[in-house]
C-alpha cells in the first residue's frame, strides 16, 4: 500500500506563489503528471513532498502519517526521487553509485548484503548499464548518467516515485523503455508515481491524472483527458498549442 495525500497545501518560493489550497491523493497504481511552464514551481512542489524544503501551510501525509513526523530513513525507504540536476561526478564507479540507492535499506554497518548487491545489479541491467558497471561516472555521457540516476532510484525500491524531468537526455528508445520499466515497477511494488515534465506528450502517453500549474497559485487537476486539451494548455503555457489525433492517441504541438 502506498498513498501520498496533500491537504490544503500552500507553497511559496520567495515572493512567488506556487499553489494555494492544493488537495489531492495519489494512490497505489496511479500515475500522475505534473505540468506547467518553466518556473511554475514543479521542482519546488516535488521537493516539498519529500520534506526537502519547507511548505507555507497545509499537510502532506504518507500512508496517512504526517511527513514531518516520519523518521528520515523510513521515509527514504518509501519515497524516492529523481532529481533534475544529475549526480555530482566526484570520482566513483557506476556500481558504487547505484548501490547508494540501497542506503535507506542497508542493515549492516560495513558489509554489503548480497541481496542489496543483486537488486543494484538488476537495476543497472534494466537500464542497459550492466556492461558499464566498473566505469568511472565522469566518463559517462549525459544519457548514460540520466539512466544511472534512474537505476539508482529503481534500486531504492520506493513505493512512491517522484520524478523530475525523467526523459532529460534520453533518446526516444530509452524514453519508451523508461516508461515500461516504471510501469512494471509500479505494478510489482504496488507503487504510485508523480512525474514533473515539460514533455506534454510524454505525460499524455503515460499518466492517467494531471496537475497543471498556472500562474498566481492557480492549478487544474483531474483525469488526463479532462485536463489535456488545447484551451487549458495554451492558457497554462501562454503559447498557442494545438492537438492532432490519430491511431488512438492525441499529440500536442505548439503553433
Amino acid at each position, binding site marked *: 500500500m502506498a498513498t501520498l495525500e496533500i491537504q490544503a497545501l500552500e507553497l511559496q518560493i520567495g515572493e512567488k506563489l506556487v499553489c494555494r489550497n492544493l488537495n489531492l491523493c495519489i494512490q497505489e497504481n496511479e500515475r500522475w503528471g505534473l505540468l506547467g511552464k518553466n518556473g511554475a514551481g514543479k521542482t519546488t512542489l516535488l521537493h516539498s513532498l519529500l520534506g526537502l524544503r519547507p511548505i507555507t501551510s497545509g499537510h502532506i501525509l504518507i500512508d496517512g502519517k504526517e511527513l514531518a513526523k516520519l523518521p*528520515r530513513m523510513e521515509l527514504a525507504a518509501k519515497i524516492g526521487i529523481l532529481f533534475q540536476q544529475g*549526480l555530482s561526478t566526484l570520482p566513483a564507479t557506476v556500481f558504487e553509485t547505484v548501490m547508494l540507492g540501497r542506503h535507506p535499506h542497508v542493515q549492516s554497518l560495513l558489509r554489503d548484503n548480497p541481496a542489496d548487491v543483486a537488486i543494484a545489479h538488476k537495476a543497472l541491467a534494466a537500464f542497459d548499464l550492466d556492461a558499464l558497471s566498473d566505469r568511472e561516472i565522469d566518463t559517462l555521457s549525459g544519457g548514460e548518467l540520466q539512466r544511472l540516476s534512474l537505476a539508482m532510484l529503481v534500486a531504492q525500491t520506493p513505493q512512491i516515485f517522484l520524478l523530475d524531468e525523467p526523459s532529460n537526455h534520453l533518446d526516444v528508445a530509452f524514453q519508451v523503455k523508461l516508461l515500461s520499466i516504471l510501469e512494471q515497477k509500479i505494478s510489482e511494488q504496488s507503487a504510485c508515481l508523480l512525474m514533473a515534465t515539460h514533455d506534454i506528450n510524454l505525460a499524455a502517453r503515460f499518466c492517467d491524472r494531471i496537475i497543471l500549474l498556472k500562474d498566481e497559485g492557480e492549478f487544474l487537476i483531474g483525469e488526463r483527458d479532462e485536463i489535456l486539451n488545447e484551451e487549458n494548455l495554451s492558457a497554462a503555457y501562454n503559447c498557442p498549442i494545438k492537438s492532432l489525433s490519430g491511431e488512438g492517441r492525441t499529440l500536442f504541438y505548439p503553433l
Partner: protein
Amino acid sequence: MNPIANHRPRDFFLISNKQFLLFALLSILAIISILLSLLSGSVDISVSQLLNNLFHAENNLQTQVLQEIRIPRTIAAFTTGGLLALSGVIMQVLLRNPLADPYILGISGGAAVGALSAILLGLSGLWLSNAAFFGALLSILLVFGIANKFGNWSVTRLLLTGVVVSAGWGAVINILLTTSSTNNVQSMLFWLMGDLSQSRVGLAHFGLLVLGLAGGLMLSRSLNVLIRGELVAASLGIDVRALRLILYFSASVFTATAVTIAGSVGFVGLIVPHMLRLMGARDHRLLIPCSILLGGSFLVIADSLARTIIAPQQLPVGVVTAIIGVPAFIIILRTTIRK
C-alpha cells in the same frame, strides 16, 4: 562474465579482493615505517636490540633512547599524520571540493597565531601547545559563528568564510614574524613548517585517532552518500544538517590536535586522500582506514628522514612531506590508468 558473480561480497567487510589488497599493503607499510623510525637516529640500535627492548626493558642507553625519544616521537608522527589524513577526507566530503585540506577553514592559521604569540612571550612546551590549541579553537568557533549566522550554512558560505578568516590569520602571522627577534623567528618558522622535535604526545592524542577511526567507519556509508550532493543525501534518509555539523566539528578537532602536536605540517591532509582515491579507494568504508594508515606511515617516514638527512641537524618535517609527497603524487597521478 557474469557481473553479479564479479561483485559478490566476500566474507570480510570490504568490497573486493583488490581493495583488501590495498588495505593489507598499507598495513605492512605502516609496520615497516614504524620499524624504520625506531631504528633510525644518532644512536645505533639493531633490529634484535629493538625487539629485546620492546619486550623486556633493560636499563641501558638503547632502552632509554627508545622509550624516551623514539617511541614517543614515532607515535606523535603517526598520530599527527593519521589525524591530518582523516581530517582531509572529511573536509573534502564536507566541502565537496577536491582542493579542500584540513587547513582550508583557517584552523592552522588560528593555531599559528596562538603558537607564535606564545613563542613571542617566551613560552614553550605545554604552554605553547595550549596556546596553539586555543588559537585553533577560537578559529573553529569564529568560522562557524560567521558562516552559521542567519541559519544559511551553505558549502560556499562556509568555504568563503574559512578562506577569508585564514587570510586574516595570515596577516597576523606576518606581523608577528616581521616584528620578532631573529632568534624567535627561527622557532616560529619551524612551527609554521611543521616540526616534531618539540612535540609531546599523550595517550589522549592517540586515543582521539582511534576514536576518529571508529566514528569515521560508523559514518562511512553516509559519507559515500553525502559526497553525491546534499539533496541526494537528504532524499536517501540522511539528516544532512546534523551530519555536516558532526563533520565540521570532528574534522576541526582532529586538525587542531594534529597542529597542536606538530605545527602546521602541510600536504598530508590534501594528498593522502587523493592518492588513495586514485588507487581505487573511493568508498569511505575503505578510504577512512586506509587514509589513517597511509597518513600515519607517510609522516613517520618523513620524520625519520627529517632527523637523519642532515644529522645532527634536524629539518622541519613539513619540508620533507612536500619533498617526498610531490613526486610520489605525480607518479601515482601519471601511472593510474582511468577506465
